[in-house]
């Protein structure tokens, strides 16, 4: 009686656990395969170029818009907040630090995850359910190298560039609010930004960007690659790609910050 209760309990609770573990294993294998294939030839340059253009060039408007408003709101908020203890002068450096370290990488990554991670999952997922991935194999082409590798390289290359552009635009947003709304002297604002500019702020932002780019492409490809069950399966894959990438971006954002700045 008691034993069979335990058995039933294990059977009920065990199933999702086993499913979870096997999925984790499947994902680990996918990651290992991705890394291996990213480092070994052949490379499909044309596919990489297409991904770079899709992910980089066409993301510029979204990244520009998010970072400029992020920079603007930080200037406004820090000004009104710092006025309480007479530290309004710190606005320029607060904008600089928060944009380069946090806002540009995280917001850009979340936007690109929504834009590109979803598109990757949908495209590869559709290729899976319509047997195009099998067709690649029968044409002596490794689908991993043809589809996944270029996307992962694109993520690693493009995200830091986007974030660098986002840094500039975000700081400019802060400048606009600082000078035209809060009445800072333009020369002073630029000066205090330049004086506080430190390499570490930019580099951590760029390291984050590269990691986020990897996460976006990896999860987009993984969810697409493993999708099954027709249009519905592709829909699920797309949602999962965006949600899981966003969560991982926020987690890794903390982890990387901790690695660089905890002392």
């Amino acid at each position, binding site marked *: 009686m008691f034993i069979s209760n335990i058995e039933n309990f294990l059977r009920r609770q065990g199933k999702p656990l086993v499913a979870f573990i096997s999925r984790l294993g499947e994902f680990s294998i996918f990651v290992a395969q991705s890394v291996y294939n990213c480092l070994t030839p052949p490379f499909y340059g044309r596919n990489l170029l297409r991904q770079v253009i899709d992910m980089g060039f066409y993301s510029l408007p979204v990244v520009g818009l998010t970072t400029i408003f992020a920079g603007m709101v930080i200037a406004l908020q820090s000004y009104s907040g710092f006025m309480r203890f007479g530290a309004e002068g710190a606005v320029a450096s607060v904008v600089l630090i928060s944009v380069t370290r946090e806002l540009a990488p995280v917001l850009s990554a979340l936007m690109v995850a929504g834009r590109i991670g979803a598109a990757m999952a949908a495209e590869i997922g559709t290729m899976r359910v319509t047997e*195009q991935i099998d067709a690649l*194999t029968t*044409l002596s082409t*490794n689908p991993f190298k043809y589809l996944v590798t270029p996307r992962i390289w694109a993520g690693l290359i493009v995200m830091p560039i986007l974030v660098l552009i986002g840094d500039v635009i975000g700081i400019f947003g802060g400048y606009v609010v600082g000078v035209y709304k809060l009445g800072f002297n333009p020369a002073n604002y630029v000066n205090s930004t330049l004086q506080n500019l430190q390499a570490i702020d930019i580099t951590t932002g760029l390291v984050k960007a590269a990691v986020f780019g990897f996460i976006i492409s990896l999860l987009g490809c993984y969810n697409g690659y493993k999708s099954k069950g027709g249009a519905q399966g592709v829909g699920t894959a797309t949602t999962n790609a965006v949600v899981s990438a966003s969560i991982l971006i926020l987690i890794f954002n903390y982890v990387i910050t901790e690695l660089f700045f905890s002392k």
Partner: protein
Amino acid sequence: MSENKIEIRNLHKAFGRKVVLDGVDLDVVKGESLVVIGGSGTGKSVLIKCIQGLLRPEEGSIKIDDEEVVGINEEQKEKLHSKMGMLFQGGALFDSLSVWENVAFDMIENKKVNKKTAKNEAIRVLRSVGLAPDVADLSPSELSGGMQKRVGLARAIASRPEIIFFDEPTTGLDPIMADVINDLIIESVKGLGATALTITHDMASARKIADKIAMLYKGKIIWQGTVKEMDKTDNPYVRQFINGSSQGPIKVEI
């Protein structure tokens, strides 16, 4: 060297608890066209995917040109695929590429033929399956089902493979277009001197393109022979299938 191009012994494949192939034995003689018939869901597509290494069987052996292909590594698989062509049931054309890039895929990606030569060759192959050159620059999604089948056929034969697989080449086409495809299959197989393995439940097509016919039922090959032998056989399963009758030993689970 045996005369068999493909030799399958005791092939088993299951998905979870669902057994699909349960001990398939099948030979495809070099230069011959074998047609596998069988009801929907009997595992015909699974059989082809096992031969191509797209699915891994649990048990059994598949030999191509006397070499075992079950469990070979990626590199060997790529080499193996360079002598095989496949027409997929759903076409499986790459929708991110134009029609001619689909047909020339192997030339461009594997043989590194320059674009212009590849395109000319692709147009020549397209013409051989009855498609005009102006189709070449369209996207596969702009084509009708019958045209997509032809492009799929063109892609399958473009690399002049030794073995060609056709997964239901005529399903979903009108009878005239189906017959056109049959003729194209015969022409391209004979033209290349290739070995062909076709799966279908279209009996008219099977009669036309087969040198030999094999019937797959409940995970096993239960009968094989020539078209003439098929018409004379008293095997009740084959009789029921070719007559398309719901009465007989084959029960459809509804």
